[in-house]
């Protein structure tokens, strides 16, 4: 656990120092939400009705940037080699990097949540469901993003390949999180907790699969 936290803290410290998350990713996230609002012609009732889906589209597009960034910090200067040469197991490296990515996504979701309330006039009716489904979706996105990031890392075209690989993988998260959030916001008559279950399953599958597959994929990067 100590090494997981070390790797996670290192990634978060890099983001604090570089300010890429603050000055590039966060403005992109808000701009996405604003543009999606423009696409619906600023019809406030429509915006409110579709706010759950628009929120998660913005989160997933933002997650692509954050996942790219998570790969790039290890790729620059071959820092991943230093992790391989340490006694740290690849599953712990995966967990640390996924944890850091999840923390960054959680911060971005908080920002987008505030923007959604302000811009779309959304109101959260079931706070517990909203938080639980966001947490499960975030873990799933972070695990899948970390795994597919290292898969695309050795390829020279990773900047364009990673979104092509990740967006189809994110589709179940988009569907599940939109439904769960729709229930939490009172804009969809569905059982949000059932969709939360799907999100939890997605997170579990990618967390386990990532811990197992990260090592061989990191080896391929060398």
């Amino acid at each position: 656990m100590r090494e997981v936290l070390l790797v996670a803290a290192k990634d978060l410290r890099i983001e604090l120092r570089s300010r890429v998350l603050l000055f590039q990713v966060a403005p992109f996230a808000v701009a996405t939400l604003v543009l999606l609002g423009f696409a619906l012609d600023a019809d406030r009732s429509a915006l409110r009705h579709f706010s759950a889906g628009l929120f998660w589209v913005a989160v997933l597009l933002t997650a692509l940037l954050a996942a790219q960034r998570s790969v790039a910090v290890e790729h620059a200067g071959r820092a991943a080699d230093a992790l391989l040469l340490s006694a740290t197991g690849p599953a712990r490296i995966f967990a640390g990097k996924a944890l850091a990515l999840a923390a960054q996504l959680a911060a971005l979701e908080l920002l987008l949540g505030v923007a959604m309330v302000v811009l779309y006039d959304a109101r959260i009716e079931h706070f517990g469901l909203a938080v639980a489904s966001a947490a499960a979706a975030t873990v799933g996105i972070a695990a899948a993003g970390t795994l597919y990031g290292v898969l695309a890392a050795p390829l020279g075209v990773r900047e364009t390949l990673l979104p092509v690989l990740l967006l189809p993988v994110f589709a179940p998260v988009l569907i599940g999180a939109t439904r769960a959030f729709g229930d939490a916001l009172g804009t969809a008559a569905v059982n949000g907790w059932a969709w939360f279950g799907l999100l939890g399953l997605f997170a579990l599958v990618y967390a386990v699969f990532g811990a197992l597959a990260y090592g061989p994929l990191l080896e391929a990067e060398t």
Partner: protein
Amino acid sequence: MESAVWLRDAVCCRGGFPALAGVDLDVAEGEILLLRGPNGAGKTTLLRLLAGLATLDGGRGTVLGCDLQSDRRALRPHVGLLGHDLMLYEDLTVGENLRFFAALAGASGAEVRGALERLEVASRLHDVSLRRLSAGQRKRVATAVLALRRPRLWLLDEPHAGLDESGRGAVNRLVRDAAGSGATVVLASHEAPAAAEVATRTVHLAGGVAVSRDAEGASPPAEVPDA
């Protein structure tokens, strides 16, 4: 004397090209071996192979008793590699880089300070981002990180490049101390005078093969895996 490195007909391909095309090499424990050869001779690939970071595509080899075909992961924690890429985080400060790698290696704060002093990295630089340092200063920091790991096998790719006179001296002192404490050092360098000061033997590589080596090599390890 036991072999730290034992290679027979080692082949290593990079992108389908045989960067090493049948290398035989013995390095005894505590030895300081200098690899020389023109660009593209395979020096960097050989160092990455010995670090367990490149795959052995043909031939046989053991490093520190670990088979390069089947046991690369067990080897890595005992190896320190200083490559062309310094394997550090550019956005972190000198101190943050050192503390992170020291924590992974289980090194103490005193060891961090000791490594920085030995590499003559000024304390005023500790809070400076790595990307703001000169190439020579970065090389010193990367060498300090390597020293913190206390490896049994030091693999140094152009360790003197970009360093001033005092930096070269500091690296050579570190290499001598490492060998003196029983570690083995393999260094590749085009800086012949600086490298020759510390090397106990020289091997020339050309076209992915060792074209000359001392007849007095180390004896093969007690257990050599079957081909």
